[in-house]
C-alpha cells in the first residue's frame, strides 16, 4: 500500500513538475493580476504548455534553486498561463478570454516564455526559452533595478 501511495505521489509530483515548478505559489493570470494590483507588486508570468520540454528543464535546473525561489516568491506575484488551454479568465478590462488567447496576445509563440510585468500589465522584461539559474537571478536584478529607477512596482 505504501509503495502504491509513494508511486501515486511521485506521479502527481511529476505531473506538477511538467507545468509549474515545485514550491512556487503560481496562480491563474487574472487572479495574479488582481493580487498584484492589491499588493502593488510586479508580476512574473510563466507561459508554458502541457508537455513542454524546456519548461520541465527550466523547472528542474533553474527554479529548483533556493535563492531563485526566495527572490521570485518575495518580489513578484506569480502567474502561470497554459498557452494551449481553453480555461477562461477575466482580464482587468473586463474582457473574458481563454488562457490560449492571453498567450497569443503576449506572443508566447514558444514555451516557456517568462514575462515580468508591472501591476497594471505593462511588460518590463521577457525571457524566451530554457533558462539557467544565473539567467533568472540576472533577470530579477534587472527588473528590480528598473522598478527602483521608475519608482513603480
Amino acid at each position, binding site marked *: 500500500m505504501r509503495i502504491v501511495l509513494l508511486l501515486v505521489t511521485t506521479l502527481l509530483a511529476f505531473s506538477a513538475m511538467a507545468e509549474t515548478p515545485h514550491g512556487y505559489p503560481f496562480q491563474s493570470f487574472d487572479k495574479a493580476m488582481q493580487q498584484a494590483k492589491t499588493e502593488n507588486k510586479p508580476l512574473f508570468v510563466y507561459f508554458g504548455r502541457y508537455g*513542454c520540454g524546456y519548461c520541465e528543464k527550466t523547472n528542474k535546473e533553474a527554479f529548483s534553486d533556493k535563492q531563485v525561489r526566495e527572490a521570485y516568491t518575495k518580489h513578484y506575484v506569480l502567474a502561470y498561463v497554459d498557452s*494551449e488551454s481553453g480555461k477562461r479568465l477575466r*482580464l482587468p*478590462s473586463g474582457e473574458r478570454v481563454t488562457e490560449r488567447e492571453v498567450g497569443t496576445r503576449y506572443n508566447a509563440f514558444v514555451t516557456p516564455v517568462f514575462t515580468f510585468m508591472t501591476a497594471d500589465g505593462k511588460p518590463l522584461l521577457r525571457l524566451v526559452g530554457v533558462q539557467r539559474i544565473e539567467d533568472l537571478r540576472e533577470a530579477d536584478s534587472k527588473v528590480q533595478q528598473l522598478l527602483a529607477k521608475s519608482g513603480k512596482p
Partner: protein
Amino acid sequence: MRLQIAWFWLLLTVAPLSVQAQPWEFDKPIAVTKTQGEKIFHHLESAGRHNIAISTDTVAVAWEDNRDGTPRIYLARKGRNSQSFSAAVKISGGGEAFEPSLVALSTNRFALAWEEDARIHMRLVTPTKLGPIFTLGESEAMQASLANHDQQLLLVYSRRDGRYGRIWMQHIEIDGQTLRPKQVCAVDAEPVRDEQLYPTVISLADRIIVAWEDRRPGHTIIMAAQTDNQKSCHFRSPQRISAASPGRSAAYGKGHGVARVALAQYGTGQLVAVWADKRDFREGYDIYSANYQPGNKQLFGPNIRVQDGFGGVAQQWHATVAGDPSGRLVVGWDDKRDGDANIMLSWRDDNGWSDDFAVPGADSAGEQNHPTISLDQEGNLYLAWIERTTIDGPTRVRYLFGKAIKQ
C-alpha cells in the same frame, strides 16, 4: 539605370499574372455590428471556427460580446448582395455564453450551439423566427461544434468525465422549430486518460468524422475517428492525425504542441484537417494540414505545412478552412509577418498550397485576427474577423466578400 528599367518592365509583366492567379476579387470590408466601443469585446471563437455560414441568399455571422456587461451570443444576417448587416439578434439566454458554432441549413435557416453556464445550448433561426433554446441536460459541457447532417444536426462537445474532458457526439433531430436529442455516444469508447478538447465534426455521404485535441501522450496531439456509416453513433478506434516531432529532445519534452483543429469538406467526399502546430519550436505555431484517406488504414495522410517560407519566421494563429463542391479549398489564419496581425489565405493549387496572400482590407493598421471563412457552391469566399487597435482595446467585427474569379 538600364537594369532598373528592366526590373520595372519585368514587374509590370509579372504583376498582372500574380493578381490573376488570385482566385477571388475582394469587396471592401463592412461592419458586422454597429455595437462597439469602450469596454466592448467581440470574440469570433468556436471549436472548428464555425462562425460564418451561408444559406440560400443569406450570410450569417455569430459571435460573442459583452455589450450589456455579460458575454452573450449574437447573430447578424444580410442578403448576399446587401451592403450591410441587419441589427444583431441576441441568441443566448441569461447566463454567460461563449463560443457559438454556426451551421447553415436549407432555405435561409441556421442552427447555433454554444456554451452557457457550463452547459451546451442550441437554437434554430429562420428568416422570421428564433426557435426555443434547447439545453443539453449534461453539466460541465463546453466547446460545442455543429455540422449539417442531411438537414439534421450533429453536435460534438467536450464534457467532464471525472478529471478530464471527453468528446461526445449527439444526433439532433430538427422538427419544425424544435430540436430533439437522439443517439449520443463517446467518440472514443476507451476510458478517458487525459484531456479531450475542442472537437469538430463533418458528415460525409457514408460516414461521420470527428477530430479533436487530445492530451493522452502527455502533450497535445490532434486525433480523429470515423463511424461505420452515416447513421451510426459507433466510432472505430481513434487515430492520431498530427505527426510526432522528428526525434525526441529536451525542446519537445513529451512532444511538441498543437492546437485547435478545423475540418472542411471539398470536391466529392474529400476532407481536410488543419491545425496550429509547433513542431518547428523556434518559430512558434505553423499551420499544418492532412487529407482524409478513405479506404486507407491510416485515416489521414502526411502532414503538410500550409503557409509558405515567408510565413516560417512569423507565428500563425487561428486556422480556419473551407471547401466547395468543385474542389476549391482555402485555409485562413492570422500572422504578424508584417508587424501587426493580418488575415492571410492559402488555397490548394496544382502545386499543393499556394503562396500566402494577405487579404486586402483585412491587412490594415492594428490587429486583424481570429478569421472565420466559408465558401458557397460557386466558390465565393465569405470572411469575418476581429479588428482591434491595442492589445486590450475595444474590438470590431469585420466582414468581406471575395467573388470567385473563373480560372
